[in-house]
């Protein structure tokens, strides 16, 4: 098999990431992250202001697993699914061990098979670990363009 370019590997990763969430295979989502990682959902407004709080804020893969466990067994929300459209990664900086990149996304939400609703747009600000066989996220900050979120955010972005 031909050796994929870094850009292709990043695109492959994001395709898997989107498919994992959009098909409802949420249990596999934390595996895309390194065991020590940072995942945060925030807004461009908070990002600009340097305000650190997030709607979701995790500092370990275990915390992401807890998030999914809570969604499955504790939290109450209507049946829903997402469709991610993930754009092309812009590689900002990289070396043999890690790469920083930004990738735009658009997510529509479908609640109870009803209307397709534009739920969120923004950019993933990522740091990937390149040292293993497959890419892993050391950091993904989900910077949503809008500060306004409809109803609730259950499934991760």
């Amino acid at each position, binding site marked *: 098999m031909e050796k994929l370019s870094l850009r292709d590997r990043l695109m492959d990763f994001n395709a898997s990431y989107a498919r994992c969430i959009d098909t409802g295979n949420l249990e596999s989502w934390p595996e895309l992250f390194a065991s020590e990682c940072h995942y945060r959902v925030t807004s461009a407004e908070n990002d600009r202001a340097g*305000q650190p709080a997030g709607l979701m804020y995790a500092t370990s893969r275990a915390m992401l697993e807890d998030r999914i466990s809570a969604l499955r067994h504790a939290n109450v929300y209507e049946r829903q699914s997402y469709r991610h459209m993930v754009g092309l990664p812009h590689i900002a900086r990289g070396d043999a061990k890690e790469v920083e990149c930004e990738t735009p996304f658009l997510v529509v939400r479908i609640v109870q098979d009803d209307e397709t609703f534009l739920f969120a747009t923004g950019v993933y600000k990522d740091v990937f670990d390149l040292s293993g066989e497959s890419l892993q996220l050391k950091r993904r900050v989900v910077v949503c363009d809008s500060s306004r979120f409809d109803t609730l955010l259950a499934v991760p972005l």
Partner: protein
Amino acid sequence: MQTSTIQWIPQGETRVPLAVYRDEQVYANEQRNIYRGHTWNYLCLENEIPDAGDYRTTFVGETPVVVARDEDNEIYAFENRCTHRGALICLEKSGKGAKDFQCVYHAWTYGLNGDLKGVAFESGVNGGGGMPKTFCKDHHHPPKLRVATFCGLVFGSFSDEVDSIEDYLGEEICERIERVLGRPVEVIGSFTQALPNNWKLYYENVKDTYHASLLHMFFTTFRLNRLSQQGGVIVSESGAHHVSYSKVNEDDFEGYRDQGLRSDQTGYQLKDPTLLEGFKEFNDGITLQILSVFPGFVLQQIQNCLAIRQVLPRGIDKTDLNWTYLGYKSDTPEQRQVRLKQANLIGVAGFVSMEDGAVGGFVQRGIAGTDSEQAVLEMGGDSTASNSSRATEAAVRGFWKQYRVLMGV
């Protein structure tokens, strides 16, 4: 004058007509009688506009409002509406260093205190046009709000008759606000949650101590037995404001400090319990305090997670919930990290609060097509008094007590 035909029970708060959540006339009356009536409305934090020339825009009910700090260091609030043609005076959410505000439409200029300072071409151009000589700028400023601050919170009122902010809140509510906001805070994040329901459905939810352990299953599912055994609900005399709280025994506090919450060995468990690791910062053992000030302010302490929620109506079935997450200026980096992790409990994606974003919508959808049906509010009897049990709707009834007075229904 009330043109609505909605039928209320003659007195008391044990029944509420469901039509009040979806009636346009009721909604319009609320704007006049509640938000523009004898109430204090939360506008912003004092430290969000610390210097002269700092400003923010917000809303009182649906009315757009500018809050600004003038050169005299006083805070002023006025309707964000040019007295010429009604356009917004200030378009930005916030800013610094303003000397004045200028309407973009015809360049009428307003001071930071809301006074009309300049009318473009007031004297005409080349001897033609201009405003009549009788036009007096002093008579054409947008309505100004009374402004009061308490513990760093800025409130505004359209009423000249409403009590001072301290009297409006009452001693018990003041004490409970001071407990959380008595030391300098800073904003660590802010988000808006767009709720698909009437504003009252969310505000009742805040005051509803009955639903907490029934709707929100996070603590139960993960067998996180709250040490907090005691608690209660305080309802202000008018019914308007409330505090619900739970606390641990001082004897148990070591356990609380070590773990915050206890998890037993059966069922689901958190793989990363650092999510809930906390530290003791209040000396009264209270681990949860939810406080509301009528008609749209909520102050929340859940363990070390501090936040303000501003409830703003955006139509009969739309409400904006503006979350402002807080830390103390004195936080160590470790303490700040605790707050950021615990913030997973609250907000749009909160483990113990995400349901509140949706449940009002379930009511809003459920009441479509109703006629004279009523909600039942009898948990804990019919009183609006403070109570040591939280299996009561006393604070919700309190809300309706004040609501009926202000609305004259």
